[in-house]
């Protein structure tokens, strides 16, 4: 599947496109299909997220995860600081990481 990621304009937090809004959790990401270009244009103009781009993702046992290691790390946090990691499956993660 294809999903969109970007950064929250004001906070810089990594965010994922849910189909109508942005979430800090990659597990909320929605398939964008062929709409990337349009969604990116509209959302950049809306100034909620910035630096938006498309990535390939898979459904995995742990939920949706990007295919490439770079976006995997982007989704879950630096591998060398487990204390700062965002565990996508942990409902409380958003509050303790960000």
């Amino acid at each position: 599947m294809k999903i969109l990621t970007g950064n929250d304009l004001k906070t810089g937090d990594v965010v994922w496109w849910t189909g109508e809004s942005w979430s800090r959790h990659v597990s909320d990401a929605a398939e964008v299909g062929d709409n990337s270009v349009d969604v990116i244009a509209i959302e950049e103009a809306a100034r909620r997220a910035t630096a938006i781009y498309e990535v390939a993702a898979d459904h995995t046992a742990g939920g949706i995860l990007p295919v490439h290691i770079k976006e995997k790390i982007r989704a879950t946090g630096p591998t060398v600081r487990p204390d700062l990691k965002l565990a996508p499956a942990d409902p409380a993660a958003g509050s303790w990481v960000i």
Partner: protein
Amino acid sequence: MYKYDHYDQAMVDTRVAEFRDQVERRIAGKLSEDQFKPLRLMNGLYLQLHAYMLRVAIPYGTLDSRQTRMLAHIARKYDRGYGHFTTRQNIQYNWIRLEDAPDLLADLATVEMHAIQTSGNCIRNISSDQYAGAAADEVVDPRPFAELLRQWSSFHPEFSFLPRKFKIAVIASETDRAAMRLHDIGIQIIERDGEIAARFYAGGGMGRTPMIGPLIRDFVPIGELISYSEAILRVYNRYGRRDNKFKARIKILVHEMGAEKFIAEVEAEFAHLRGLNIDAPAAELARIKAFFTDPPFEAGLPDEIDRLDPDFAVWLDQNTHPHKRPGYAIVTISLKPIGGIPGDASAEQMELIADLAERHSFDELRVTHAQNIVLPHVRKADLATIWGALAEAGLAEPNLDLVTDIIACPGLDYCSLANARSIPVAQKIARRFADQQRQRDLGELKLKISGCINACGHHHAGHIGILGVDRKGVENYQLLLGGSGAEDASLGQITGPGFDEDGIVDAVETVTETYKTLRADGERFLDTYRRVGMTPFKEALYG
């Protein structure tokens, strides 16, 4: 140390106000990301893999305790309790919010600090020798010249949209502790017949096409430091390539034009500019120099040190360096604990270091390009106390210039340009070589790791260098041997096919073991490599 007057303060305060205005316009939609990006970059604000990242300038690597405490405060208030000291003597914070950035910069400005020109295609923070003012081998303290260049280059109206970034280093001794010849401009302050002058190198750099800068003028009268620098920058601004950002650094211009032609262009521009009276008045350099006079060193201090504690003795031998004054030493605080993240320091560690500097080093400390911290002026009698305090905070690793004193860029854990992670590789290598006896037996060995071809971790200049590459979506590591960023500058050569994460750790060990069988008496790894060449190492690695 240099202190701002009301002019310097006004410039920094104005910049904070300007950036506040720019951030407001970005959030209000008056600036697109494309338009905002160069503006935020000129204030050191990147958008990285996880968040905005802020790079704060530490001019010529010098800090006092008040500033260091502010860095700790910023780590706590605006980030997640830590910062990363970089190979360009700056500090980076990884988790900054755009909406907080103006307040953060305002806090920094209260201690005469800023993030001006720490990124973007402009003249960057000017780096220098971390032992400046304390080393026995320097001609003069290089920092006043770096400070003059800082003023000249700040908000330079002609050179804020260069083809690419521009980095300057200034040293003043024959020993090069600042990788001077790997900078866009490297300046060595020299003395000839009693006259202080500047020797200029230009066109060095790392990145995807590493080059050692050629000498372009042996003697620039110190009163013309600015007009000569301006001449180089103008030639670069006019003729540097803008069609391809990978070929836009001055090193490519010097290379493609040829050093001779480049020198002729600079000389012609210099002949023109030196008539325009653009240099600073001599009184200004004198004013700046007055800030860098020696602190009130005590005379008659003892040189003897009680070496009874064996751990202390090891640290003493490894992490202190001779000072120009009897009774004093230069201390390097390693930010490379075994298994730690090279260059990272927590807010608490920064505060401890600030306390030590205030109490024991005339309130001064330095950041080194090897991502360590230096206390430049310590009484030998205080060394044991300092070591005790450092040991308690996990900062007494006795590994300066040894195999575990690894330079590593942030790599894929933080950097959106990365191909592979650098930090975990550094951690694994450090653990493999944790045994202190073994490290010391291997002697000076500079290991440097970059997560991609941009070479922020100086891998070309490592005695052993490691470069992270992407092999079909999997992290892979190339090994380089024989680089040096010192006065004997050289560029490392790739050994052959790359290795996976564990393979590269084994490969480093194979190289060090091979060195042990080949070394002659007193030879460092680099010396042996230069004598025997690549072949025996290649055979051992790929055999």
